[in-house]
């Protein structure tokens, strides 16, 4: 979770990622941000997020994204 928050904050320093739960729905992050995020996560956490997992529910909050990364890492 900490590392995800760090990556997100580097992308948009002005957003409260700890509490925000509508990152995609409220268009705080867009498709270009999502691709940058996926690349960062692949690079820093060595977890590859496949295209089929790129859905709003998985990227709407730092918590949802951390959960996704944890699940993919376990698989």
């Amino acid at each position: 979770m900490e590392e995800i928050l760090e990556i997100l904050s580097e992308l948009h320093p002005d957003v409260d990622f700890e509490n925000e739960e509508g990152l995609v729905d409220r268009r705080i992050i867009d498709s270009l941000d999502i691709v940058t995020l996926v690349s960062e996560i692949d690079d820093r956490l060595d977890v590859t997020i496949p295209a089929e997992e790129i859905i709003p529910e998985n990227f709407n909050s730092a918590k949802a994204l951390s959960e996704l990364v944890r699940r993919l890492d376990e698989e």
Partner: protein
Amino acid sequence: MVFNSLPFVCFMTGTLLLFYLIPKKVQWCFLLVCNYVFYTIADPRYLIFIAATTVTVWFAAIKAEKINNEQKEYLKAQKGEISKADKQAYKDKMKRRRWKWLLICLLLNLGILSVTKYTNFMIDNINDIFSGAVSLKPVDIIVPMGISFYTFQSLGYLIDVYRAKHEAQHNIFKFALFVSFFPQLAQGPICRYSDLAPSLLAQHRFDRKNFSYGVMRILWGYFKKVVIADRIVTGLSTIVGSTEYTGAYVLCAMFFYALQLYCDFTGGIDITIGIAEAMGIKVTENFNLPYFSKNIKEYWNRWHITMGSWFTDYIFYPISVCSPMLKLSKWSRKHLPAGIGKRVTVYIACFVVWLATGIWHGAAWHFVAWGLTNYVVIMISQELEPAYAKFHKRFKVKDKAFYTVFQIIRTILLMSAIRMFDCYRDVGTTFRMMWSMITSFRFSTFYDGSLMKIGLTASDYMILAVGTAVVLTVSIIKARKGSVRDGIYARSSIGFYNICAVLLVSTLVFGAYGVGYDQSQFIYTQF
């Protein structure tokens, strides 16, 4: 049978009435018959193309689902008894099997699309490249109505089944209905199966409110198309039809085309959604007040939304996160400056998406130029975001009304300028005409009577001004208070029907009919 023709109005009215008169459990069968009648009337030869797409996608989806289920059952049975490595190896094997079906179906359907739409474009280019040495003759090939729309909609369904997002439709006739729903066949929207199918296949009891809402939306669509888009097209065609109209005329053409395209495309989609709504069927919205966008990125999130999200989900993301791109991303982060290194994959994937978007719109270089100009502008604005953030922090204008208006006007001007590629249909001419706005702009064109000589009379301008004011007012109300129809209906249902009557009469009285009038096809039907 174009939407704004009398035969279509009769067909639509008959369909809506019969839909509620027949037994509810055969409503979907009735709609399927209507779809195929509609398509047959357009051209019976089209049937073979849509049938080919329907059968191949339906079959491939069932195969992909079967492999998904086999995998699920096997992993469930082996839970705890299989190593992580073996599990991954098994998943990879099953993925390859699924991928095989997906790939065959994609190649086949994109092949049909490419051959029908792009063969003559390729021939032209080969002749140009080998000028003199090669002279291939154009082939007489039919382009089935709405082929881009129904192909993309079907392939979206297949990819979603492949990704196990939803189950496959095992009844081929029900799937055929999803592929061929007649209101959206000609110009979209490109719906997802999970959004459209539940209401499309459901049984519908007559609901007065739903029906009234649908009828109002249909009338609103006709008003925009027939009163505004079909009227302004005369002036626009005169200006872009000759290179003698330079300078201020080009600026006029920019605004004329912005208005025509908006009223034509949103009007057509209003008719589509309205027909569906009158039957209780939910079709995805395709627009969200695009001309109120503050930047080009926002504009593309509000204009032709279903096409944009299709390209994002099925082209942009898969390209961006595929293994070679992630490797490239790792390499570029190490070897290139930090800012650029992080974004290399985004640059490449966006380029592919905008190239594909341009080609999807038509088999011509001006569409490619249009797509790539959008790409360049979006990338520049993306790179300028930190500078904008600094500017907004320093000058505190971000939430001021005047600044918002400035951003909206800037976006409209920018998008209108880019669209001139589509207007002049030739890259060189577009650049020359745009340049003429700088070199030979004659301001007096606006008041010396020149604009009365382009096929539009004073009464045309008057009708266009009032029509545009009505559209703008409705848009502002929608932006501020939400659904306009909800507001009217909540106040008075009689008022609601009165407004429907006013829309109908206005369309009949002020629509662009008369001697020499030809029902102009909707612009997006050609795509």
